[in-house]
């Protein structure tokens, strides 16, 4: 009550003060709110009226216009660029093949039409069921794929009867083809229909309209996108620009007539790689049934001439999507055909690492190369014993002899003197612990261990005894066959800088700021390299060298220099050493040693460097050195490193085109 009195009093005061304004704000509010309601209502009626005008009064006109959206611009997919080897041999090209598609809306009774098609070409019931399911998952006027990769006979028969099958379209399309199949599976990678994840990646930097167009483009049955290897990394370069195809359609979107391109699609650019396809073929054949990897490099330019990982898969199987069963078989194979062993596989380098340890010894001057260390088959450090591979010992060894005969004791001793930090530093000069962006996917870095690495990886400090294992390329040390080839090439050219290269003509493959690719290219001392080269020739060229039998390339006085390596896969206990180490032949395959060999030729004028690993192949001199020898001999015979001619390229793989049409 008091409040109300007060309000009255204040109202009276206001009245006195502002005599002209007599409006009660509450009443005024209602008036003005009603006005807003009125204006709003009128606006609403106007908008609804406009809907009425467009949809009811002029609805027929717009329906007609919708149907007259007849001349339509369809995206025309560009032809993908080719990938060719250094001599212009096609490694990835195109193949034309017939395909059949169906539009649900026009087909009417899908089931009936599909069984009609089943009478003309092979179309099993489960495939028909799958087509029905695919079709029901998209708008009724969009085409669904019925069959692809038609043989000539099937294509001709379908073409003949297509007119009688409602909603059925028979057309010729281009698909990616890899004429050399397995040879380049890992290097080229493969293409596939863009998945949801691909589309997200492909459109992430695009505006909305651009992204929408891209998604439409990738719906085209001929359109593929790179999934791995060069096909993925060089995807932009290879893809090209889509054009537009002006087509006349009926009301439901079926194409009645083609009016031509505007503009024409632009074919993607070709990629020329440094590999010699014939050398690659030779190397793969030379491996036979063994699994393993080989890398051949041009010592002068760093060009990779062969980049082998075997066994491999056939990328042609992936282009149209591989079945889960087939894929599981590939995955289950213990020889890892899906895996690029030369670039992504890491192995203990074993004795091939001894050149690095010797270089570190020369750089730190912890030993005179002529100084001899006596090997009695064992080396003690602390209260533990490290064994040489030769139980009875090598006797007195200088550096040259220690490399030539691969004496472990010598390297235990000098590794101990050098210390892990300096050892790691030298290993990095050879390219260990890093990778190179070659224009393809992958690139393992391996491990160059030191105290910092171990603190991080294992949470423990480095134990000095572990340095001894690194001295013979075992323990935490691991490397890829590519790194071993780079090491060998750097030795062979006697210092200086050299990085591997795979793409000869193609997009810029510089890695950006990816931390894996951090080759600092610290120079190696040419005098040291001379000394190492001399010892490596002793390995293959002198009696008593571990690869004496493989030194001669059989080309009339051309020799290679090299180093064998045998990488232990299992731990050998002291007790077993006492009993006698079990021979590789008596072990289960996966426990056998990896055989390694690195080398270059000719030994007095190095041109080619090679690294070979034969997985679970046993000893390096017996299993890997002969393979390396034959590959080097083939490279010299073929003159693989001669200047690429490039560009004598046919745009379609002619042999398979004949097959399809």
């Amino acid at each position, binding site marked *: 009550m008091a409040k109300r009195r007060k309000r009255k009093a*204040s109202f009276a005061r*206001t009245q006195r*003060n*502002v005599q002209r*304004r007599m*409006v009660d*704000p509450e009443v*005024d*509010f*209602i008036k*003005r*709110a009603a006005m*807003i*309601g009125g204006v*709003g*209502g009128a*606006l*609403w009626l106007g*908008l*609804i009226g*406009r*809907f*009425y005008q*467009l*949809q*009811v009064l*002029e*609805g*027929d*006109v*717009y*329906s007609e*216009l*919708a149907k007259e*959206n007849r001349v*339509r611009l369809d995206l025309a997919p560009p032809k993908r660029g080719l990938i060719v080897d250094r001599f212009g041999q096609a490694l990835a090209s195109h193949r034309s093949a017939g395909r059949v598609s169906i539009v649900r809306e026009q087909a009417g009774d899908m089931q009936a039409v599909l069984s009609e098609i089943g009478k003309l070409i092979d179309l099993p019931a489960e495939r028909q069921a799958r087509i029905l399911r695919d079709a029901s*998952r*998209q*708008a*009724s*006027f*969009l085409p669904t794929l019925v069959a692809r990769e038609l043989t000539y006979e099937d294509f001709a028969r379908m073409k003949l009867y297509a007119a009688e099958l409602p909603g059925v379209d028979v057309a010729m399309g281009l698909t990616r083809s890899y004429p050399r199949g397995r040879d380049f599976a890992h290097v080229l990678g493969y293409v596939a229909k863009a998945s*949801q994840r691909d*589309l*997200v990646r492909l*459109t992430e930097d695009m*505006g*909305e*309209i651009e992204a*929408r167009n891209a*998604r*439409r483009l990738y719906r085209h049955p001929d359109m593929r996108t790179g999934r791995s290897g060069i096909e993925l990394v060089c995807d932009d370069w290879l893809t090209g620009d889509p054009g537009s195809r002006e087509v006349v359609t009926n*009301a*439901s*979107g079926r194409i009645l007539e083609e009016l031509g391109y505007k503009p024409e699609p632009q074919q993607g650019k070709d990629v020329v790689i440094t590999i010699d396809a014939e050398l690659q073929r030779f190397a793969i054949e030379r491996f036979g049934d063994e699994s393993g990897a080989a890398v051949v490099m041009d010592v002068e330019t760093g060009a990779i001439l062969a980049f082998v990982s075997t066994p491999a898969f056939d990328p042609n199987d992936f282009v149209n999507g591989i079945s889960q069963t087939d894929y599981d078989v590939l995955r289950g194979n213990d020889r890892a055909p899906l895996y690029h062993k030369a670039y992504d596989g890491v192995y203990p380098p074993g004795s091939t690492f001894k050149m690095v340890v010797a270089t570190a010894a020369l750089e730190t001057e912890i030993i005179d190369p002529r100084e001899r260390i006596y090997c009695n088959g064992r080396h003690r450090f602390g209260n533990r014993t490290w064994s040489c591979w030769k139980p009875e010992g090598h006797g007195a060894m200088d550096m040259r002899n220690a490399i030539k005969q691969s004496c472990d004791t010598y390297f235990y001793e000098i590794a101990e003197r050098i210390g892990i930090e300096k050892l790691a530093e030298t290993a990095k000069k050879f390219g260990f612990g890093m990778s190179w962006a070659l224009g393809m996917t992958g690139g393992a870095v391996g491990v160059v261990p030191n105290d910092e690495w171990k603190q991080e990886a294992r949470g423990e400090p480095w134990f000095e005894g572990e340095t001894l294992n690194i001295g013979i390329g075992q323990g935490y040390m691991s490397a890829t066959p590519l790194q071993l080839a780079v090491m060998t090439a750097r030795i062979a050219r006697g210092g200086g800088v050299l990085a591997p290269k795979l793409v000869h003509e193609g997009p810029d493959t510089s890695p950006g700021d990816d931390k894996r690719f951090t080759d600092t290219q610290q120079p190696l001392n040419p005098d040291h390299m001379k000394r190492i080269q001399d010892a490596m020739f002793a390995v293959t060229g002198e009696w008593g060298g571990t690869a004496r039998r493989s030194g001669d390339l059989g080309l009339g006085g051309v020799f290679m220099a090299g180093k064998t390596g045998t990488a232990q896969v299992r731990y050998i206990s002291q007790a077993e050493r006492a009993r006698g180490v079990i021979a590789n032949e008596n072990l289960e395959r996966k426990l056998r040693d990896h055989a390694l060999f690195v080398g270059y030729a000719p030994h007095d004028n190095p041109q080619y460097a090679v690294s070979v690993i034969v997985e679970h192949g046993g000893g390096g001199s017996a299993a890997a050195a002969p393979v390396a020898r034959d590959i080097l001999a083939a490279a010299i015979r073929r003159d693989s490193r001669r200047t690429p001619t490039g560009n004598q390229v046919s745009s379609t793989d002619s042999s398979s085109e004949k097959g399809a049409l």
Partner: protein
Amino acid sequence: MGTFSYAGAVRTSNPSGAATKLGIGEKLGALPWTLILLIAGVAITGTGMLFSVVYDNPVEAGLPMAHLVRFAVAFVVMIGLSLVPLSMWSRLALPIYIATLALLIGVELFGSVRGGAQRWLEIGPIAVQPSEFMKLSLVLMLARYYHLAMARGPVGVLGHIPAFILMLVPASLIFLQPDFGTTLTLLAAGGIIIFLAGLGWRVIGGSALAGVLSVPLVYSYVLEDYQRERVDTFVEQLYGENSDALGDGYQIEQAKIAIGSGGLTGKGFLEGTQTKLDYIPEQHTDFILTVIAEELGFVGAFFLMLAWAVILGWGLYIAIKCSSAFGRFAAGGVVGMVAFYIVFNVGMVLGLLPVVGVPMPLVSYGGTAMLTVMSAFGVVLSGHVHRSETLARSGVI
């Protein structure tokens, strides 16, 4: 009277009842559930239409679900906010306004640019668009201003000047981002509150005249090139010309065809050919109405407009029934804001207004707008629940 009659105040809606100490259960019971059901109906319609836009496009398949989840979250927020008494809203108005203004200035200084405009402020993993929140903040702030101003007596011409300043400062900041659509919405919401507060007719007439006269100046000196182009395109299509067949003009033309070809009853859910053939960009955001009109026809469009008319009319009724000036202006301002959203969006899609980029509330895909509109409805609902609450008539602005 006082504390003894609160139960009666709720049941009889006694306008003179002063007490507001209701329990949560009673407040929930007092909510206008029919209105809330209508709001939910509109949002669920939006989800269905989004599904229609994306269902043959696996990349965007998650949008309808995301929309629904956002609505569910915003719904809880709305109900929560409706329980907050008007006195609390009134107390919070100034702090919220200042905080949002600070965020807006933050956007100017540190904001990230997306789609060519500097609208987003990234705080850790969350990206917010302060300009969206400003709409509600401004409504609350103006309601508080007039509530206190009117307590001192009728507001003269000069009394409206602070209100204009409160509105124009954030509006200019947002215009600089640049975000033309939000600027217009802000001016509309603010303008409606100032109008409701009794701005003299002479001033209204004067500013309308000034507004019309300034159009050429704004066009030549204030608008960015792309905004000018949109206006040009719009004017051209009004005269039936079309110089921009693949850009905005194309969009407007295709939108008309999609809407018109829907006819009286539409082509059926998921069966819209114009929208499915990707003729219309921005279909899941600003142009979602084309999908509704094509697939559900005039009937669908009519019922959507009817639903909105009922929701907004109800909101206006709630505003009138509030005993506090704050409640009246807050609810009225929200109604004005949402109404302008709709008029701008529908007008744009129907080719009656230039393409300014205003979404259809609750139907278009977009998180911040959803949260803004639902929070705003939360304030209106609070105005309903606490309609008999009388607020202190003095205080710092």
